[in-house]
């Protein structure tokens, strides 16, 4: 399967390109939205959590931002990804190609968007004056790839299931919102009561977000346990995603 998808790399590339180009097509600020959107979100959360609900975290804007950008990637990948196959139903019904290409392209284009967002993140990190050890910085791509696997695995499941069950699209927007609050994005995991901490740990995004924050906020190499947990979960979800997708794609052409 991997071999076949590799053969279709040009298709993935074209679809990502088309998606990125089409995303802000016709809007006045165009591509700038890639940067403006996360900055505005940052502004809102920052207002809420450092002025109204004071969190007491030092440099809260940075604390939040290094987690928010990866979170936005994850959440848009799984919610938007859920309708990606349906959106391409003309292709799926008429032409053969490994259908995995669709969620892969979608998640990849979200991922590229996150990388662009990281240009802003790095800017904010430099502005804040946090010192990051070079070794920690080396861990950053690893964490990103792990998150990519995780998002892809889940997007594969949601995109395939949505073909048979359209409500999932709407259910997912609620799930994504709730999921954000059981992931330490806007707060530190330490403030979560210990007896509920297990919920955090079965959540695969927790270790990813903690790792991002370790690197970019605390400037330190993430703990081995956190990294390991993230890698294992990422791989497991990707495998489950592939299996589910392979099982469900057989009837796509008939169901769409």
């Amino acid at each position: 399967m991997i071999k076949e998808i590799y053969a279709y790399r040009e298709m993935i590339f074209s679809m990502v390109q088309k998606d990125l180009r089409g995303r802000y097509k016709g809007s006045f600020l165009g591509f700038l939205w890639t940067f403006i959107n996360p900055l505005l979100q940052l502004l809102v959360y920052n207002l809420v959590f450092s002025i109204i609900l004071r969190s007491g975290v030092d440099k809260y804007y940075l604390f939040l931002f290094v987690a928010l950008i990866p979170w936005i990637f994850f959440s848009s990948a799984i919610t938007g990804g859920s309708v990606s196959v349906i959106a391409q139903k003309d292709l799926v019904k008429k032409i053969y190609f490994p259908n995995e290409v669709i969620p892969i392209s979608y998640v990849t284009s979200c991922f590229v968007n996150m990388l662009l967002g990281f240009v802003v993140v790095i800017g904010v990190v430099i502005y804040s004056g946090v010192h990051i050890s070079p070794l920690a910085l080396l861990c950053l791509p690893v964490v990103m790839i792990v998150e990519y696997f995780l998002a892809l695995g889940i997007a594969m499941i949601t995109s395939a299931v949505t073909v048979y069950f359209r409500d999932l699209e709407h259910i997912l927007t609620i799930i994504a919102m709730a999921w954000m609050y059981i992931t330490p994005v806007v707060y530190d995991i330490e403030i979560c009561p210990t007896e509920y901490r297990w919920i955090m740990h079965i959540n695969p995004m927790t270790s990813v977000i903690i790792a991002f924050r370790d690197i970019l906020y605390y400037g330190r190499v993430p703990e081995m346990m956190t990294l390991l947990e993230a890698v294992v979960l990422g791989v497991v979800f990707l495998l489950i995603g592939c299996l589910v997708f392979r099982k469900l794609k057989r009837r796509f052409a008939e169901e769409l």
Partner: protein
Amino acid sequence: MDKDVVISVENISKKFRVYIDKGSQLKERMLFKERNRYEDRPVLKDISFSVRKGEAIGLVGHNGCGKSTTLKLLTRIMYPDSGKITMKGRVVALIELGAGFHPDMSGRENIYFNAAIFGLSRKEIDDKVEDIIAFSELEEFIDNPVRTYSSGMYTRLAFSVAISIDADILLIDEILAVGDAGFQAKCFNRLKQIKAQGTTIVIVSHSLGQIEEICDRSYWIHEGLIKSEGKPVDVHEQYLDYIADYRQEVAAKEVQRQESKRIAAEKKAEEAEAEAALNSEENDQKESTASSEQAQDNSGEEIEPTAEELVSARKGDGTVIVKKVLMYNSNNVAQTIFKTDDKIRVDIDIEVKSDKEQAIGVAIGFLRLDGVLCYSTNTLIDGYTVDRSKGKKMISFEVDKLSFLPGGYATDVAIVNEDGSICDYLSNALSFEMICKHHDSGVFRLNHSWRSSSEE
């Protein structure tokens, strides 16, 4: 498996789910459990065949027989419920041409995207793009967005992309409906070339001539099973025989339907007449004669013209009239579809209304739908005497081999006096259709043979 075999299909079957009333929303699924009921409609029951490298095969069959489904299973857009399909090499399907086209992108960009859908890398596409553009003959327009293309240009571009990919197996559904005649010929030649290079080809088509020209074998799929396989010409002969029988059946049903409709209409007319008569009687009793006459006139208009009235609208003096014309096949069944070289009989019912000294002749003529008179004769020419005594009679016209080539035909029937004046002339008394499994053209088939000799 033989190593030369590149496509092997073993006992595949496929059912489609036909939802009685499908609900894909949660609410509908929960509330209306019965709505999730579906019927399994079997499309393919048990199909097996194998194709060796470099062979071309054709799949034929009537609409809905499962041939296109077979092709879809080969492309892997769908998967069989049971059975196994093994294919070796790169498969390219020319099924939905241009399905991946994006209207706002230019022709060139679409070539890249479309070729990418077939699994080509950028380098491979770079190498081919000029060939593709040249083949499509769209050089002038290639950088315009494809939404500005005509539908012919659109399919030409799509076909050019698909046919330029080095496939090991090429699957084609109704190919040559592409562009104008010149471009079609070009595509067809390209296809032959591709076959000569060793590409395996599977074609689904209604154009049996094309399959015969390019394919080594044909499979006739009927109701989800392979009914016949072998040399295209032989398989197609059986298939066309079946189609002819089927069409005749349909035509017979149609005749029946028309007949029952006519009877119903007549009955209605009779009732209306009876009612009108009743009304007028009542009117007679109540009102003045003037108004009752009017009522009668009105009722007369509503009644459909009777056979007699139709006759009066026809040419001729009406001393002899044609009542009914029917055409029969060799089994004595009235039909409107015949195969070329069928034995037929036309029965003409006539009624002689008044005696005259003159002899009469019954004339029959066959016209092709474009108005060409194909054949016409009458009893006077043939020296056959028709009895002219008063009363109803039937004249039969028999042909051992009706050798008209396929198309629609009309039959004119006339009764003439010896001096040439017309008693009755019924134009388009009966229309019928000819069908044929051969591809010769013209109006008639000439009874012929070929011979050759070389000069010493």
